[in-house]
Structure formats: structure tokens, C-alpha cells
């Protein structure tokens, strides 16, 4: 669904991503893992258009999107969440969802000013569709809460909710499980699986190894901006390069 070709990114003299050839297949849940600072979020930023590559190309559903801006990629069906929970903290959940419904449906300027019946209809449509998403994530009872006041677990869900409001084909989740309790983690994994069942391809960055092994179909391991392993969770966890990369933590266990 999305693939990169020889994707490279230099920050000044530092090579953050080195000739990465990544491929995400439709309908899979792909985990991007690796020790801290090895370029995972950079990879996400490159894929979603928040930074531009030094060289290489990115293809989404066969189309070259390397030169497309971030918001244009969202329009094509590529959505993301951010590390450390980011949504619109001063808005209520409901308003967050309205904000996120920018793309679907398209509302015109004059419609809004004159408050036409079409506008009112579209408002209702947005409320219904986003209501479904909120229900799916268990947030519907909290619609009118201001996000800033919500506990961390819920804020993460809001972040996912607004990404889902863009009706993505491919969803990139950046450490969605950080700071969640074990119960919240399994709930989140359930949601991820359900999303896949409904047709969304998912790629996630995560450090929670147990969760990653549990939910991902395939893993790609990055170290210093290069792919060092690619395969099923089982294969990867026994790969000695991977074990070494994690600085011998596994070595002791083995």
C-alpha cells in the first residue's frame, strides 16, 4: 500500500534514515520497532510529509507522493497520530471531531455564512459519523468534555479518533500505548485489530514489546536509520542482529 524506495534523510551531517526500502501491505498491521533514536518517528514524518527526504521516493497505492504536502497526503487516505498525545486540548471532544471532519464532507464558505439548510444537513451528517467513531472508541459519553481535562488514556483515544475522522486507508500510530495501563493497552489492541478488520491498514511505532508481538502481523526493525530485520514477530525476536541492537538486554535473557 505504501512503499519507500531508497529513502534517505540527512539532518546536516547526521544520517537519520539510510536507504530505507519499506513496504506496507494492504490489510496488515505492521510494527516499526527499534531502539530509541533510531529514526522511527523520522520515518513517520517522512511518510506523512512533515519533513522532506534528502533523496528517495515514497509511493502510496502506486502513486508517487514524495512531493505532496502533508495535508494533501491526508486527503489521499494517509493519516497519523503523534507521540505524546496530540489533539486539540482546548476543545471538547465533539469540537475536535468537527475540526477533524474537514475533508468529509466538503463544506463551502458561503454555506456556512448564510447557515443554509445544506450546511445544517452537513453538520448533522458530521455529528452522526463522528458519533459512530466516538462510540467505537468508547468516547461518546464524554463528547462535551474538554480534552485537556481528560485522563491520559482517553486523550490517546481522542488522538486516534481525530485521525479516524479523516477516513484513512493507512493509519500510522506513533507510540499509541505509551503511558497506558495494562487494561487500557488490551483495549487499545482490540481497537487496532477491529480497525484492521474494517479495512484500515495500520503501521505502528511501539516500545511495548509484548503488545507488539501480540498484535502485529509483521515487524520491521530499524537501527541507525537502516532496516536490520523484517519478518514475523517470532522470526524477528530470534534474529541476533535485533538482539544485539537492543544492547544486550535480550542477550542476558538468552
Amino acid at each position, binding site marked *: 500500500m505504501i512503499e519507500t524506495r531508497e529513502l534517505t534523510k540527512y539532518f546536516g551531517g547526521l544520517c537519520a534514515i539510510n536507504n530505507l526500502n519499506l513496504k506496507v501491505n494492504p490489510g496488515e498491521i505492521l510494527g516499526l520497532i527499534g531502539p530509541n533514536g533510531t529514526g522511527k518517528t523520522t520515518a513517520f514524518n517522512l511518510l*506523512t510529509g*512533515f519533513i522532506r527526504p534528502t533523496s528517495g521516493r515514497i509511493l502510496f497505492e502506486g502513486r508517487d507522493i514524495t512531493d505532496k*504536502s*502533508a*495535508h*494533501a497526503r*491526508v*486527503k489521499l487516505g494517509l*493519516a*497519523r*497520530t*503523534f507521540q505524546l498525545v*496530540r*489533539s*486539540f*486540548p*482546548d*476543545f471538547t471532544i465533539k*469540537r475536535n471531531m*468537527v*475540526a*477533524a*471532519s*474537514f*475533508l468529509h464532507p466538503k*463544506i463551502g*464558505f458561503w454555506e*456556512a*455564512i*448564510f*447557515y443554509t439548510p445544506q*450546511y445544517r444537513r452537513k*453538520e448533522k451528517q*458530521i455529528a452522526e459519523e463522528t458519533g459512530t467513531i466516538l462510540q467505537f472508541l468508547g468516547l461518546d459519553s464524554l463528547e462535551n468534555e474538554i480534552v485537556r481535562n481528560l485522563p491520559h488514556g482517553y486523550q490517546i483515544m481522542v488522538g486516534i479518533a*481525530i*485521525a479516524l*475522522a*479523516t477516513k484513512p486507508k493507512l493509519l500510522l500510530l506513533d507510540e499509541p500505548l505509551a503511558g497506558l495501563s495494562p487494561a487500557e493497552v488490551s483495549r487499545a489492541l482490540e481497537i487496532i485489530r477491529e480497525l484492521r478488520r474494517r479495512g484500515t491498514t495500520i503501521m505502528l511505532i511501539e516500545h511495548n514489546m509484548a503488545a507488539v508481538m501480540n498484535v502485529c502481523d509483521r515487524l520491521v526493525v530499524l537501527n541507525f536509520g537502516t532496516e536490520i530485520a523484517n519478518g514475523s514477530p517470532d522470526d524477528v525476536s530470534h534474529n541476533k542482529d535485533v538482539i544485539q541492537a537492543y544492547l544486550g538486554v535480550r542477550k542476558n535473557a538468552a
Partner: protein
Amino acid sequence: MRLGRNFGWLIVIVVAFLIPLLLHDSQYFLSVFVMCLINVLLTSSLRSTASTGQVSLGIMAFMGIGAFTSALLMMKLSFPIWAALPLAGLAAMAVAAVIGFPFVRVTGLYFAMVTLFFCEVIRLILTQWRTMTGGSTGIVNIPSVGTISVLGLNINFSHILPYSYFALFVTVVSLLILYRIDRSHLGTHFASIGQDESVAESIGINVIWFKVFSFCIGCFFAGVAGSLYAHFLTVLYPDVFSIFPSIYILIYMVAGGRKSFIGPILGAIILTVIPELFLSLKTYQPFIYVAFLYIVLYSMPGGLVTLPGIIGARFATMRQARLRND
């Protein structure tokens, strides 16, 4: 729009329309009323631009462009007021669109600097373009609105009482438009950009385009305010449209409370009226402004508009304490 919530507003508007009648025998207070309306419009325009996180220190530049455009269209090309006014807005908006694209790429503080700088440039251009603007001495004898036939009556809007109604009408319509924008999905998008540009980008909002758009809307109404000003005063000097008045408008907005829609309106009204009520304090006007600014900055960050809320909360805790002691 539910009638219940808006009934209060209807009353406010009716009251506003009664004010000129109450003041009809004071030329001076009617002038204050008109200036107040102009300030309200300017402050609301500034808020529109500021809602996407871009605080402009140069709104006077756009007011000046609007003022001179409107004056010249009526003087040299004999345009009627109902054409000159919106064209003034469009002229200001056009300039905003042109400089908008490069300007919005720079972040908050830097944006404040370049807009301040731009205000100076426009003031100098207006001073220089002698053929059009009369140089530093400006232009005089700008036609005011003239006689218009309203409901069969010929009303001469050049007199101050009818003009205050004209200004009130224009201001109310403009505020209605700004209000609709703010309440609609558009306002939500602006506010979302103001909170976190990256998140906004990540949900498909073309942040740069929207920032330019909010800038243009604000500048359009600043141009309209300029037109109102030109035909009210009937004289224009380029020096009026400089940095410090722009800063005053900013202070009105911050003092009133920039998060809400009414906040800036309130700030403009209070800060325009107070120095006029206490004429002896006129020399100290800037100090009054700064006092309000600092009070808001340090103890009422939401602006004066949050004052009722603060007082209400204070009463609530007092009542609770008293109930507990009983």
C-alpha cells in the same frame, strides 16, 4: 440558530440602535459612538486574524489602505458609498492576500515583527504617493455618504446622527458575518490551527492557505473600518495609520479576551469609552490602556470578558464556605 440564546443579542442590538437617539444632542458623544464602532470592527478583525495564532501588529496599514481607497473612489471616480465601502475592504484584502503567503510562513513572534514593519512601509508609501494621497498633509473634503432615499425619506447621511446609524448598520452586519464565520466549521478550523498547527495539518487542513484566509478576512473588515473612518472624518492623514494605534487595537483585543467573540468587542468599547468619559485623563490615556493590559495579563488572562465568571466563582465559593459554617 436557536432563538433563546440569541434573544439576548437581539436586545443588545436594539439597545445599540437606540443609543444614537439618546445622544442626539451631543455632537461630541455621537463622535465617540462612531469611533467606538470603528474600534469594535477593527478589534474584531484583528481577532479573526489572531484566531489562527498570528498576532498582527500592523492592522492600521490595512485600515489606511481601505480608507484611502474608499475616499479616492468617491472623490475621483464618483462611486457611491455602497460600492466604495466593500471595494475598500477588497483592496485591503487584496494586499493581505499578496503579502499573506510569504508572511504566514513565519512563526508568531517573527510574524508580529514583519507586520509591524509592514505597517511602517504602508504609512511611508501613503505619505509618498502624493498624487493619490496628498502626501503628509493628506486629503480633505472627502465626500461623506450624501443623501440617500430610505423608505421614501431623503436622509442626508453626512450629518452625524444619520451617519452614526449608517456606521452602526455596517458594523452590525460585519459583526454578524464575522460571528457566523467564527461559529461555523471555518471558525473551528481557524481555532484548531491556532492551537496546534501540526495536528491541524495531520487531519488534512491546508494550514498555510487557512492562515492566509483568516488574515484576508480580518484585513477585509479592517479596510471596511477604514472606509467608515474616512467618510466620517472627511479628512485623512497618512500618519494616523501607524504602529501605535495598531498596538492600541491589540490591547483592546487582549484586554477584552481574545478567545471569545465578544471579548474583543467588549475590550474595544470599554477602552474607547473610558478615556472619553473622564476627559481630564486624556493625557493619561496610554497609561489607562497599559493598566488594563497589565491587569488582564497578570490576573485575568482570559480577558475582561471572564470577569463575570470570576466574580461568579468567587461568590460560589463564598456561599459554600458560609453554608459549611452554618
